[in-house]
């Protein structure tokens, strides 16, 4: 309601005011090279490069296929990338995302750097530690109304976790009306987080996701219990537990924050986290466990 008051005020001022076009003198370059890669232990490393567009341009930015990419492991060069796949992606101007592959498998406890350049742009680069592997033991009583699992947190290191509840059916909803938003992938807000071990105020809940830092686990084995209550019968419910590199964790937090906060005229804008120097994007790492919940 208070937000409406403010919007009313802004509207009042807008009506009382005059509007005219203005030339913006941008403080930074509007076109940059963008590098994105998510690396997991044991997987071949893949990446994409694209180009940012000036904000005044509405059309989608292009994915680039003229990149020259190098991979470094602990600062030593290990591989050069090649164009290996094309993927449908409507976010790009050509509806296609060009995917580059390195013939190299990521190893635990290593640090990876990707450098990229094109004919148009100078070299940009991003670096990530590999996300630690975590052991997730699913509680056998897990059902459509209850999810339980145990995390064995790695001692002596800082870990970042991301929990995400996913459903493929749009008829689901919380009976207590706590859903504040349904995204396209029907992610459900985890306000129903109900555990004696972990409670939301100790972690951080942004939109439809839960982000938890190592402070809650601190090298211990923790039982996580989540009660779910639906008005209908959920189908294809899955719960995703991710261990993240710090950069990927920061990216997820800020990206979801941005997704859920795009139309607010008052709040300060959320900058989606980037660890790519001289450009934009994210080079991060995760270790992913998905718990499928049967109906």
């Amino acid at each position, binding site marked *: 309601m208070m937000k409406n008051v*403010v919007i009313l005020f802004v509207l009042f001022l807008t009506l009382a005011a*005059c509007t005219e076009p203005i*030339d913006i003198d941008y*403080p*930074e370059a509007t076109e940059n090279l963008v590098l994105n890669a998510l690396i997991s232990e044991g997987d071949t490393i893949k990446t994409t490069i694209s180009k940012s*567009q000036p904000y005044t*341009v509405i059309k989608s930015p292009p994915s680039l296929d003229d990149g020259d990419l190098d991979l470094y492991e602990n600062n030593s060069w290990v591989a050069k990338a090649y164009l290996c796949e094309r993927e449908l992606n409507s976010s790009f101007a050509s509806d296609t995302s060009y995917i580059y592959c390195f013939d190299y498998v990521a190893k635990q406890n290593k640090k990876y750097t990707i450098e990229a350049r094109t004919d148009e742009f100078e070299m940009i680069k991003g670096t990530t530690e590999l996300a630690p592997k975590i052991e997730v033991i699913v509680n056998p009583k897990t059902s459509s109304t209850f999810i339980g699992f145990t995390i064995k947190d790695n001692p002596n290191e800082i870990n970042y976790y991301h929990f995400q509840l996913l459903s493929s059916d749009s008829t689901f909803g919380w009976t207590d009306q706590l859903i504040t938003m349904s995204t396209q992938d029907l992610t459900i807000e985890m306000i129903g987080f109900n555990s004696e071990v972990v409670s939301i105020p100790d972690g951080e809940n942004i939109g439809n996701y839960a982000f938890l830092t190592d402070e809650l686990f601190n090298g211990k084995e923790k039982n996580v219990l989540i009660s779910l209550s639906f008005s209908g019968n959920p189908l294809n419910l899955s719960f995703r537990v991710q261990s993240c590199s710090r950069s990927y964790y920061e990216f997820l937090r800020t990206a979801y924050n941005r997704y859920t906060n795009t139309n607010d005229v008052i709040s300060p804008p959320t900058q989606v986290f980037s660890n790519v120097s001289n450009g934009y994007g994210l080079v991060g790492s995760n270790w992913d466990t998905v718990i499928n919940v049967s109906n």
Partner: protein
Amino acid sequence: MLIEGIYSSDTLIEIIESKLDVKISFASKNFKNQNFEIKSSTLKVSTILKLIFDPLLFDFVIRPNKILIKKKAAINANSTIVTMSGFVEDLESGERLISADVFIPGTGYGTTTNTFGFYSLSFPYSDSIIIVAQLIGYSPLISSLIERPTENVDFLLRTEDALLNEVVINVKESAFSKTQMSTVKLNADQIKAMPAFMGEVDVLKAVKFLAGVQSVGEGSVNYIVRGGNPDQNLILLDGVPVYNVSHLFGIFSVFNIDAIKHVELTKGGFPAHFGGRLSSVLEVNMKEGNLKEFHGSGGFGLLSAKLALEGPIVKDKASFMISGRRTYSDLIYRPFLTDGLDAGYYFTDLNAKVNWKLNKKNRLYLSFYNGLDKAFDKEDPQANSAFDAELKWGNYTSALRWNHLFSSKLFGNLTATFSRFNFQIGSFYRYDSITTAINYFSRITDYGIKYDFDYQYSNVHSIKTGISYTYHNFKPGALSLSTTASSLQDLDSILNLAPPTFTNDFSLYIEDSWTINQRLQLNLGTHYAAYLVNNKFYNSLQPRLSGRYLLSPSWSLKASYVYMEQYIHLLTNSAIGLPTDLWVTSTENIDPQRSHQAAIGTTLSFGKSKWEFTNELFYKDLKGLIAYKPSASIAPATNWENQIITNGKGSAYGWESFLRYNSKKTNGWVAYTLSKSTRQFAELNEGEKFPFKYDRRHDLKIVLNRHFTKKFSLGLTWIFNTGIRATIPISTYVDLNGVKVIRFSKRNDYQYPNYHRLDVNMNWKKKTNWGERNWGLSIYNAYNRRNPFLIYFDLSGTSRNANQISLFPFLPSFYYNFKF
């Protein structure tokens, strides 16, 4: 004897010799020939000579047929110290005058009246002393050759206006001689002479024309001082904090100029008696009420009408002042609304004050203020069902003060205060005879008591001390539900969306104004603050140091250092003073705001004290700042602590220059500030330091008022400042999730276009047989500069185009005021 004009000292002496048929002899060979402006009427020769020669540290002896001028002997520290005290009052109304100077010219002995017009001055007694009492807007009062000061001497000053045809002696000892720096005073007449906006002159808009004070936006009364946050400004109305000073979403302030007597802004070098806010203290004092005659004033403008009445309850014993103001736009357009609909907006102010002289040593003041903004929308009361909505906010403040003069050296004031800011949104649904009401409200309430003492310990030590306690009740958000449905008769519940917080705020201070010698004066003090919130106890000992060194009789060097803590915060993103802004307290998780501040500067008085030129360099270091998380925007009703980021840092430094001119016909100033201010939060801008939103590098203001005739005066103000800072979208790209996202500039990396504006005020005044009336025409934004208020991107076309919204264009308005 009548002497008038500008003379060299040689010529002057010749004139005195010829007119009085005396011989003036020099005992000193070092007499410097200088020019003097003498304006006198019926003063004694000795007074005139003293006025001329005292500041030059020359003395004189009158002998038969000759006057001997000699180098003045140094003040003998072993002379008998006498203490003189009393009040400085307006001769016509009996009102006590705040911040009036009482001093002995050329000696360095002087003081300033406190909030209650009281002064106490100790000095070595000699048999030829002149004491001057003066205040801007009043003719200086010179008590010459006081035989032997009695303990109580009151000065009754006459307004300059009443003396337009008379000649006054221009002896002024102004800001250069005071230890306190970074302070500016304005009286009601100076504010009234400034251009009006929509027919209303405004105290806070006048304050924004001072050096170091910057506006947060077009039309808004909120301001920032020396790179601080808006919540770091303490605004006191008769000593009571006012939490929200905005009417009409910040376009007008809550201060009705007709009820105001004196305004004083302190931007730095805070003496120990100030506490609780980091950046400034604005003291606004209401009129007390005329003790001698009944008077009234009033007027109307484009938006509002006002009326103030004052007069004696018992002549010379007790008086009252009551003043009201209301906007009337809702009354004008109400007849044009469709049948059954009643909607509108208005604001009101009511100020009232009573003062009662119990006896020579005791006086009581009771003051009250209530302001209200209300927007409403009501549907047909005859209809079977209707939905009504109401939005209102406002302040209540009151203060009961008891002055007691314990002795000529000790003055005490006991104050009990109450302050409340209330914001409420209500909706009422009526169906048949059943009404259901839902109200959301947030509120902050203070109950306070304090006791302050001024003690003139000796001619070199003047001490202020005091103690205060405030009980704060924060209610950041509560929801109440009530219904008349018979089945739910018992339902009338209040749900606290955020739990109320009760805090205890205690402070104790002591400061000593120490005159080491005629050149060097220090103010040393400490302010102890203790704050109890839930089970968390904060306390701090805050040193306050300031000093003044007289480089010459009219040029001083000043410096100050202060440490301060602030235990309350304002949750806001707009800073323009919306009623939705939430005042919250420091808690176990949220530290107090802290600051170290230092300043150094000089003040020079010249041109027969008509000109005053102040330059200051300042540095401010801030810690414990809070801000909304990037995802949050409006104060959340629930769990607000989780919506903010804490432990922010900030800094501000700069140079302020203030040149002020004050003569009977012309007054005004030029204020320039060159400054830089930054902020730093671990969670914002990737942890890097970024410019403060209101980091305006250059800020220039010019204020000029000129009385061309007795009837016509012209006021001009011009302001220029560098544009505010903003974070803007610069590009879009596809992120790791395959989603197109916006890349923003670094935080506050974009600078809005510069802001400048000229306002003009023309005033025609006429004396009538019943009093005085004046018409005024004000022009806001005289050359129609389209200043940016907001920049946004238009998404409707094939590309996003940047657009600028400008508020008030060329905006003439008129007003009519009267007084009787």
